[in-house]
């Protein structure tokens, strides 16, 4: 990693020694914060999630990657109580979460964001943020009518909200309705709001999709800081640069199953992962592939082209069969 223009961050050492035994799918962790067993969710004939065993290491940043439709978001939903699995058990900090409603899960310190953002449109950005804080005294019905009981706490929350907003480059929009945010700004708000509660585990569903790369970079530093403060992060992302940059551990899902696990460098070399997800051509210049600029196509580039063509033909055939 070279130094970057936004400045502050220094490449840091990744957390290591998170697991015991082989870094194989479902391997044991030294200090798991989440343990899931036999969690499966079917939609009609489709098995969206079918996880034999999964442990998420505490105090580390874990990336959950996998092709579109692999079941990542669905797994998030299941873990957080937004959806009920058909079978399985899972626990957070040793407490079983089966049947625990979503809000209770969040209160335990496990907060998630949504891939399709959920801004609270007719609340201001600041109010959105303040809502994220937990254990607010003024949220009790009786206390709420006596401002004296909650005013100080509310001020603290507000200060913290402003701080986070500044970091997420949303400070200028604090007084605006969340409805007026751009797509990327909503992503940012979603994530900032989740952090308001100082969760023990934050689960981010594609937090950086649609966020400007320069900003992404500074936010990643923030996440790393949070990790230093002891927070556990589990995130889904398709941006491999980001995964490589901050993830201590990577879990790969495909067709609902965990297909690989391990430190980022190892996993990304895994041929199965490359085939199913990454493609072997992360670093090929598409300008060259598409013939827009002249340059070394290279072996990888040619492969990519071929692959794509094959895939197209195969899929056309398949689609035709389907339609029959």
């Amino acid at each position, binding site marked *: 990693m070279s130094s970057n*223009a936004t400045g502050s961050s220094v490449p840091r050492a990744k957390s290591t020694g998170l697991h015991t035994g082989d870094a194989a799918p479902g391997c044991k962790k030294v200090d798991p914060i989440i343990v899931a067993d036999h969690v499966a969710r079917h939609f009609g004939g489709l098995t969206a999630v079918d996880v034999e065993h999964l442990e998420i290491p505490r105090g580390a940043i874990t990336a959950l990657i996998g092709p579109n*439709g692999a079941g990542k978001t669905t797994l998030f939903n299941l873990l957080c109580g937004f959806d009920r699995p058909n079978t399985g058990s899972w626990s957070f900090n040793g407490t079983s979460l089966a049947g625990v409603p979503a809000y209770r899960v969040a209160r335990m310190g496990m907060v998630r964001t949504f891939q399709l953002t959920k801004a609270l449109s007719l609340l201001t950005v600041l109010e959105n943020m303040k809502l994220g804080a937990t254990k607010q005294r003024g949220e009790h019905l009786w206390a709420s009518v006596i401002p004296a009981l909650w005013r100080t706490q509310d001020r603290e929350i507000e200060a913290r909200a402003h701080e986070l907003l500044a970091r997420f480059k949303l400070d200028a929009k604090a007084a605006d309705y969340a409805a007026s945010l*751009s797509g990327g700004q909503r992503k940012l708000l979603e994530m900032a709001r989740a952090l308001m509660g100082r969760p023990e585990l934050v689960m981010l569903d594609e937090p950086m999709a649609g966020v400007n790369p320069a900003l992404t970079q500074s936010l990643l530093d923030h996440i790393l800081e949070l990790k230093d403060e002891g927070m556990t992060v589990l995130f889904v992302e398709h941006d491999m640069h980001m995964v490589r940059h901050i993830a201590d551990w990577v879990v790969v899902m495909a067709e609902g199953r965990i297909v690989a696990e391990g430190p980022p460098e190892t996993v990304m070399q895994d041929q199965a992962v490359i085939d199913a997800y990454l*493609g072997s051509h992360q670093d090929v210049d*598409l300008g060259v592939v*598409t013939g827009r600029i002249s340059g070394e196509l290279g072996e990888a580039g040619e492969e990519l082209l071929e692959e794509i063509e094959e895939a197209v033909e195969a899929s056309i055939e398949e689609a035709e069969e389907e339609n029959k």
Partner: protein
Amino acid sequence: MQVEDLTAGYLPGVNILTGTNLTAAKGELIGIIGPNGAGKSTLLKAIFGMVKVRGGDIRVNGESVVGLKSDRLVARGIGFVPQTNNVFPSLTIEENLQMGLYQKPRAYAERLEFVTGIFAELGKRLKQRAGSLSGGERQMVAMSRALMMDPAVLLLDEPSAGLSPVRQDDAFIRVSDINKAGVTTIMVEQNARRCLQICDRGYVLDQGHDAYQGTGRELLNDPKVIGLYLGTLGQD
């Protein structure tokens, strides 16, 4: 297509676009990048008649299209993939694709073949409702829907967001292919590197107007642009 001195906004008195200029020659592939909230989506929406234009002009083939309703623009061969809410959740994938071809239902079979060629997953699940799709799958549906109509001008708002890396590459290559086939394409992207790699020319939009422009390569290597907009993560 030409955009001149465009001003537009949502709230009364607040202009999001403040005199934006953009030109896309026939058959060109234009990439637009910029920070969040710069007005990129607003620009596309303004071009497509979904945001009221307050000043300036938009011309397609020399004719002003300001004030035309979206469906009229579609009739003129302009296609658009919005950034958010870009599928019909309660329609099946198939129906979503049919909607893309609303004005020319006859060509359906042929276009379907073309589109499923790009996103094979979709071809297998034509009967699934789009509302139950994963984020990436939705994005594919959204792209396909716009491609169905075989437009002359294609406006894409972050088409790659949420797609897995392979799919992203596919998507870019396809966009490039489509463009090569003569479709003028304007693409907003946060996956700026990839975008700039394939586009003919790029614009950097900041605070409502075009801060930089140049060929893709120029921007890609411009240290200012890197510092402010591209970041260094992707640079290996």
